[in-house]
């Protein structure tokens, strides 16, 4: 069933700096890497800038990173450091990080120490939301905007940022429309395909990948819905970049219909609604609303309710909670989360995993057992 376009997405995910990034760079545009959903992509779409979600496809070992970060740090952070040290992000002209967790914070410290990049910024995102922290976040966004303007000589005026927000909205509207198809009784798209589409989009210039996405959307219109799945699953957790992880779950007869992870679309892919004249305030509010990371100290109930609502909306049979080994935020948070979901009658499978897909056999067995435990 996979069509031509999905092969394009697959190919774009083979390299952290794919051919579309290369093409944009050749045209004089400026790629800025980022690794956390608390970085508003729209801000990095102003003028010649474009955001590239940093991922580490085909990560084999992390020998250098282990020396600096230790092997007790999450394998995503180690993977990024390893790729940086191997020059796999050499096209990126700058990076924006968030001290979203200790691992990301220390990754930034080690990068600054080892690579001394020309443009690097850490965005100080508060861990709770109120009027004071919203104002703080808006100021943070203004600071980075000024820094980008000064360093890259790009237009970071309010007008330019508003245009970038419109471009972002056009992009997320398409993704959201495709995502809505997953609510259908027989969705025409698998979880693997959807994740390939989203990840490829996040790792490419949006305008250059948009034609492919539109082609894919047309292709979906002519497709039959998937009828033979054993269970509809939702995947919840932190960073999940490799679509092969979803494929592994679906190989057991399940269909992943919803995702609440860092690079997923729930609740993240909604258009930005401008409020007042200050684009930074708008973006600050949007950023807090779109992400549901356990780093935010007061959002357990929102996270739980979003999952419960999604389960109903997407007719989900069970939730797979995926946690990268050594992630304290998700690791600790999963304890009350699993209990709360089970109390609401939602079956949950907690899977501890590495950033790259490994120990597939074990994972398959556990998914299979989970589906069977639901009587599917």
């Amino acid at each position, binding site marked *: 069933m996979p069509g031509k376009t999905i092969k394009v997405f697959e190919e774009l995910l083979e390299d952290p700096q794919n051919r579309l990034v290369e093409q944009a760079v050749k045209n004089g545009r400026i790629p800025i890497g980022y690794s956390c959903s608390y970085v508003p992509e729209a801000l990095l779409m102003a003028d010649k800038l474009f955001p590239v979600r940093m991922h580490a496809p085909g990560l084999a070992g992390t020998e250098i990173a282990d020396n600096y970060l230790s092997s007790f740090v999450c394998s995503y952070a180690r993977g990024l450091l390893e790729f940086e040290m191997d020059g796999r992000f050499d096209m990126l002209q700058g990076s924006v990080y968030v001290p979203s967790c200790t691992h990301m914070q220390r990754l930034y410290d080690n990068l600054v120490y080892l690579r001394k990049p020309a443009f690097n910024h850490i965005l100080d995102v*508060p861990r709770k939301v109120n009027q004071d922290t919203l104002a703080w976040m808006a100021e943070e966004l203004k600071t980075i905007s000024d820094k980008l303007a000064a360093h890259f000589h790009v237009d970071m005026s309010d007008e330019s940022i508003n245009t970038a927000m419109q471009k972002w909205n056009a992009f997320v509207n398409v993704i959201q429309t495709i995502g809505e198809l997953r609510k259908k009784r027989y969705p025409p798209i698998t979880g693997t395909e959807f994740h390939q589409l989203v990840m490829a989009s996040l790792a490419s210039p949006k305008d250059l990948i948009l034609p492919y996405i539109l082609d894919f959307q047309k292709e979906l219109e002519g497709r039959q819905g998937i009828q033979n799945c054993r269970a509809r699953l939702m995947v919840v957790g932190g960073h999940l970049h490799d679509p092969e992880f979803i494929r592994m779950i679906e190989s057991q007869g399940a269909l992943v219909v919803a995702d609440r992870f860092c690079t997923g679309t729930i609740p993240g892919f909604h258009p930005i609604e401008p409020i007042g004249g200050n684009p930074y305030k708008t973006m600050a509010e949007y950023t807090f609303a779109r992400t549901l990371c356990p780093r935010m100290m007061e959002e357990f109930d929102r996270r739980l309710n979003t999952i419960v609502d999604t389960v109903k909306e997407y007719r989900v049979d069970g939730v797979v909670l995926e946690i990268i080994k*050594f992630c304290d935020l998700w690791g600790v948070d999963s304890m009350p989360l699993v209990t709360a979901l089970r109390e609401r009658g939602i079956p949950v499978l907690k899977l501890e995993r590495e950033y790259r897909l490994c120990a597939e056999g074990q994972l398959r067995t556990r998914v299979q057992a989970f589906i069977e435990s639901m009587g599917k």
Partner: protein
Amino acid sequence: MKLNTVIDNTKTRIVLLPDILKSFLRNSLLGYLFSAPHPRDALVYMKYWSMTGVAILIFLGQALFKLGPLGLVRSLIKNPWILTLLRVNGLANRLVRGRSGMYHDSICLTVHSVALGVLEQLRDMLFDPKHLVIFEDLVPYDIARAMGLKSYLLEAMGIVLPIMHSDASLQYIDEAENAGMNPDACSLPKATVGMVLKGHMPKGIAIVSSNMPCDAGAASYAFLQRAYDLPIYRLDVPYHFYNERAEKLFARDVMGMITWLEERTPGRMDWNRMREICNGRNYMLEMETELWDMLRIRPAPLASEAVWLSHLWHFNITAGHPISIRHYEKLLEMARKNYTNKLPATENEKYRAVLWNPPFLHFIDIFSWAERTYGVTLINDSMTYNHHEPIDTTSPETMLRDWGKTIMQGPMVRHTRGPAENYLDDIFRMVKQFNLDMVWIANHVGCKGGQAMNGILRERCRTEGIPLLILDYDLSDPRIVSHDNMMRQVEFFMENVMKAQRLH
């Protein structure tokens, strides 16, 4: 439980009886006297032994009066860890071995004053539940005291228990892991969660937590709040906090906490009482700074537990409290006597060390062992090392701002956030300030933030020519790295890197 299991467990305990008896005798007063201490030291030890014993008896009398006989028994059943605290004189016994003179006395004093502090904490925890507010560690409850509330630090017993007895936290760590908490998380939040899961920590009327010091600690409050079903206020320290903008944001946050507490508890802010507490803090800071100045002398007049254990309790938990002020006054007096008479804490001070990251809670004896075996003297540690200004008590606004700065820039808080310099610069600053010979990193397996700095630190130490020992351990769980293994790591370092000879 099956009969076979009960029989097996009983057998195991019987087999362990001789060791338990031996350890009991060794840590008893009799055991101490049999270790042939100097008669003067023995007299001082017995003085503190009796004073601590009397303080415990007074506490039990008060508990009997306040809670009634049944209430006291119920409290002991609900909080069985209280019995572990009775080993406090055994702790003093372990720590003073091989130490003499004023150094010996300062350790007796420190253990005694911490015991008094713990008893105060128990009074707050047990006697007045309607005014009890739970605080996360690293948020000192000065403000709650100023508001007339009773408080306790939820993590405090997770810190104190393994110091008393190595295995004391294990049942709680296991409980948390069995409930689904990730085993690789720091064992302190695990122990805390385990204590709450077992129902071994009293419930108050509200919780105050924060984003300090680490992800596991902060994230555990999502569970803790649900377990207690209490309202919670969370303080948020920004990543970049060395600037006026952050100071203002945090001061507003602290003010938000005060308003929130006033709305949800019977407490009312009394700024005069807050001023007294802040003045007490300032006075303690002044005394501690003088103590550090004396520690710069080689050999140091006092060291080890007298320095770090004093700070750990008296600054983090009861700063500005009369017990803590009195403790620092006496400690300073002892240090001055040694300093004036040019008497070193230990005659064998061959190497001066700093300990970075939290101390080895389940094996704090390692310092006295290293002191006796290689002459390694622990001069200071990262949890103690402050360098903030005194609190300006002119107005509520200045107190809020400066108290907030004290928290944001306090040890561990500033080391776990902000750029790498916050972590690294203090180490090298201490090396110079205290004329140190080596840096010991307490490489807690659960502390990912610390682990991830070792690579840079190793290279920086190499460049600066400072010997570095990265000592692997787990904060509260001796099953991860045993005491023997920890001593072996020190031996390898001392013999291979420092080329040191054993003293005995």
